[in-house]
Structure formats: structure tokens, C-alpha cells
């Protein structure tokens, strides 16, 4: 009863791994799949290897963490070797990619198409270098060009991952839909945020600013999913502070067809996937829901 689909791609259950969390190696992603996730989104990678920022790249705050990993990755050539080792049987494998230009995106898309079921475009990382990440997703024109170029080059569905750090997320969502995105995932990390150590009188992160994730950002993510659901027709994947089955239901009721889980793994371990699946099934039986499909967006209905 937990099956769902996102633009025609079937998921055993609505849970997948969020980009950038334990997603750099086939080994860790296979472990996550064995732990109950129906799909995995890889760490975002680019054409060339990139070391990311110096440490500290993460710091804990009330209700979550802020991070500025800086999109470190071994480059597409190395990453293809990882993608090949992911167990695709019954699982959905999604590559997250990033770049600065339409050409970079389409080149990445072409190279990985045969190895994955879907491709997520990271146009939303709030601590990327100038020209990357959210500097794309905060600009409608840039977003349109990048999504359109990726879609043209792709044989698999394209997901545009959105940043909440804009004045109006529905505008960008509609732009991405117009440009051909098959689905949207939201939200990437919030802010940016900052943590200052008061004894050393310095921002903790090497990059000073970092994106916020975890429980604290869930209300913002839910609100964004709810708004975007009313603005677009393409399916939505909810991300941001999912820790338990209640959170999953909240995202689905707001309009998501599936959710991604990241920071919760820090607190709950990889067991979080099987735990949520079990609890979600009990909830659905209790309430008389027989499919995820019938639950999607119902918080919009009525009065």
C-alpha cells in the first residue's frame, strides 16, 4: 500500500535519500536502499572533481545543522563508476548534478542517462560558488535555460530542486515547469544561516554561511510544498526535516508524492527508513487510506 509514483517512475514506498547525505559512494547508497529507502539521490556532482570548502563544513544548531560542504565530488568520470555499482533492481536511482552553464548540465545529463532512473538538477544549493546552485535557482531566466537544456539532453525524467531562499518560490516553480521539468523537489537547505562561536568571536563554518537542514526547517518546507502544489501540475517531492511518519504524512497532505530524508539520518540512523515505512503503514490502515495517491494534497480540500 506504500507504493507511489512520480511522473511515471514507480517507488516501492514514498521515501528516498536526499542529495548530499551519505550519497557519495555506491556502498553507502546501497546500504540506504537495503535499509528501506525506495530510492536514492546521489551527492550532487559536476564535470570535474571538486574538493569543496575547507572544514568546518558543518555545525550543529538548535533544530538541525548548517552546512557548507561546498559541493565536493570526484567528478562525473569517477561518479559514473559509483552509479554503476548501485543496485537498481526495484530501486529508483537518481543522480543529482550541478554546473554553471546549460552546456555543463547537458553534458552531465548525456553521460549519466543510461545509469539512472531520474536526474535531479541542483539549482538550489545556498552555499555554492558564485554562478552555481542557488544563484541559478534564484533567477527565473537562468533556471529556465538550465532546465530546458537538461530536459532536451535527457532520456529520463528531470527533477528541478528548488531553493526556499527566494521572495516567491511559486514563480521559480512555474518557470521550471514551463521549461520542461518532469517533477520538482523542494526544499534545498534554508537560509543561508550562520553560527558564531562567542568565545572565539568567529563564524564557525569556513564559508561563514551555510544552508540549514533538519527539524527546524520543516514548517517552511511544508509551506513551500503547499504553495507550489497550487501553482503547478507536475508532481512534487517534499524535502526538509522529515524525521518520522507524521512528517511524511504532513508533506503528502501538503501535496508531495514522495519525500526525501537527509539530516534525520544523523539523529535516527539509517533505520529511519524502515521505521517510517512501518509506522506509515499502520497510520494508513488506522485511517482507512489504501494508497499514497489518495492522500496527496488533501490538506487543500474541504471548507
Amino acid at each position, binding site marked *: 500500500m506504500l507504493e507511489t509514483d512520480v511522473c511515471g517512475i514507480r517507488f516501492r514506498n514514498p521515501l528516498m535519500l536526499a542529495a548530499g547525505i*551519505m*550519497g557519495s*559512494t555506491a556502498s553507502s547508497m546501497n546500504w540506504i536502499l537495503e535499509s528501506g529507502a525506495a530510492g536514492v539521490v546521489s551527492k550532487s556532482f559536476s564535470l570535474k572533481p571538486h574538493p569543496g570548502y575547507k572544514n568546518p563544513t558543518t*555545525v550543529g544548531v538548535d533544530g538541525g545543522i548548517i552546512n557548507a560542504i561546498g559541493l*565536493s*565530488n570526484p567528478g562525473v568520470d569517477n561518479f559514473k563508476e559509483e552509479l554503476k555499482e548501485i543496485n537498481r533492481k526495484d530501486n529508483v536511482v537518481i543522480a543529482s548534478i550541478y554546473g554553471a552553464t546549460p552546456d555543463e548540465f547537458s553534458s552531465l545529463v548525456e553521460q549519466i542517462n543510461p545509469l539512472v532512473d531520474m536526474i535531479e538538477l541542483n539549482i538550489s544549493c545556498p552555499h555554492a560558488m558564485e554562478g552555481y546552485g542557488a544563484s541559478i535557482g534564484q533567477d527565473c531566466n537562468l533556471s529556465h535555460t538550465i532546465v530546458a537544456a537538461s530536459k532536451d539532453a535527457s532520456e529520463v525524467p528531470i527533477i528541478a530542486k528548488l531553493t526556499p531562499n527566494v521572495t516567491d518560490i511559486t514563480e521559480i516553480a512555474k518557470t521550471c515547469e514551463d521549461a520542461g521539468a518532469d517533477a520538482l523537489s523542494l526544499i534545498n537547505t534554508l537560509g543561508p544561516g550562520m553560527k558564531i562561536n562567542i568565545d572565539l568571536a568567529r563564524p*564557525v563554518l569556513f564559508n561563514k554561511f551555510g544552508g540549514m537542514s533538519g527539524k527546524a526547517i520543516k514548517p517552511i518546507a511544508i509551506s513551500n510544498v503547499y504553495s507550489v502544489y497550487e501553482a503547478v501540475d507536475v508532481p512534487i517531492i517534499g524535502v526538509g526535516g522529515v524525521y518520522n511518519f507524521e512528517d511524511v504524512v504532513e508533506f503528502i497532505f501538503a501535496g508531495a508524492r514522495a519525500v526525501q530524508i*537527509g539530516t534525520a539520518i544523523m539523529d535516527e540512523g539509517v533505520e529511519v527508513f524502515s521505521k517510517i515505512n512501518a509506522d506509515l503503514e499502520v497510520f494508513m490502515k488506522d485511517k482507512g487510506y489504501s494508497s499514497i495517491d489518495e492522500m496527496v494534497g488533501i490538506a487543500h480540500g474541504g471548507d
Partner: protein
Amino acid sequence: MIRAPQAVKIKEIIDETPTIKTFKFDTDIKANPGEFLMVWNVSDEKPMSISNIGDNELSITVKNIGEFTSKLHELEVGDMIGVRGSYGNGFKTDFKDKKLLVIGGGVGMAPVTALTYELIKDNDVDVLLAATTKDELLFLDTYESLDVNLHPCTDDGSYGFEGYASNCLLSLLEDTSYDYAFVCGPEIMMIGIYNILEEANIPADYSLERYMKCALGVCGQCCVDNTGWRICVEGPVFDSEQIKLIDEFGKYRRDASGVKY
């Protein structure tokens, strides 16, 4: 466990060897042997094992091998650093009346020393203390005053057994067996030791190192093939059964970008 750096004041610095220093500071962070801290000097942050666990006091022992560690070596008593942790899964310590063997190579003595203090309370402990040369034998004086059977060992024979730690281990195994062993050192050394201990049917804990970023179990930087385990959560210490499943052990690791080398 804390996830944001806590500023601590260095209260004592010990010159252990020409390349290794120990830094002592007060902190309310609680730790077990084998766990590690992320140490922040305001320009970078790197993992360091806890080498001694006192009352509201911890030590780290740092070998100067690059930019960050050489900056740490410039610190003076009274300077502040940031520490967060303690992280990871440490050594097994629930032994009683056992014959145990602690093996440390170079600065790999750091985590096993915090452990040894714990083990000697209830067990008969042999310590294989290895280094390239006499001057680099870490904590030699300490171990000579502890209630352990000390087996120093240097590559160049300048002190104790002459040769690699693995040779020294083979010679020890000629007339002794052990219930359990604990190993930390360069991976090239550990793989040799692992092969010998497996052959001799001696179960053991091994402490691994991989490039660390978050140390919180999220970034995925430190995951090992093929299990996917995180050195910062499931590790850094693994037992023989687990090591068997870590294919990359002794073979390769990944740099900050994730490129294998």
C-alpha cells in the same frame, strides 16, 4: 556529544617526540577510548583521537604532518581551540582477567593509550609500541611506568625489537597467545597485523582513518566500501568480523573530493 565547537583553553602542552605533541584541556565532553574530536583552530577543523581521558579533562596527541597539524604545533599554553564531539564508536572495553594485546604504531598510540588505562584495571596487558626510531616511540616513559608488559619496537632497531611491528608481533606470538588485540597505526601496518592476527585466530579491534568533514554521519565523505559504513559513526573502530567486510581496508581511500587513491 556536542555538534558545535566548544572553545577550550590549552592548559598543558607536552613535547612527546620531535614530531608529536600532546595538548591537554578542560572540557565537560564525555568520551570513551577510541572516540575522537573535531578540532578547530579557526582556520580549519580536523579529526583527532582522544589520547587521554581525565576528570573533566581530555588530551589529544598530534603528529605534525601538514598545514593544520603544524599550526596546532605552534599553539601555546593559554591559547584557545574549538572542539566538538566526542564522536564515533570506540574500542570494546568489557574485558576481565584476560590476556590482551595493544598494538600502536607512531601516533596510532594516541587512541590505544586512552584505552590501555582502562584495560589494565582488570586485565593482563601486553603493549607493542612501534615507531620508526627510538625518538618517535610515543609515550615510552608513560608505558614504562604502567603495569603492562611493554614490547618496544623500532624499524631501525634504535630501541627494543628491530623491525616492523608485524615482525615483532610474530615473535610475540611464538610463545604467547592473546584473548583479544587492539590495533592502531598506519593502514599499511594494520593490514599486516590483521593478516597475522587472523591467521592466529586472535580477534581484534582496529581503528581506521578516513577523510572527515561533518563527523556527524551526514556528508558521506568517510564511508568505506563495500559496506558503506561511516568511519565517523560506525567507526573509527571496527572488529575483525567487520574489517573482513571492508574491502578497501589496506587498499585505497578517498580524498576530499571523493577521488580514490
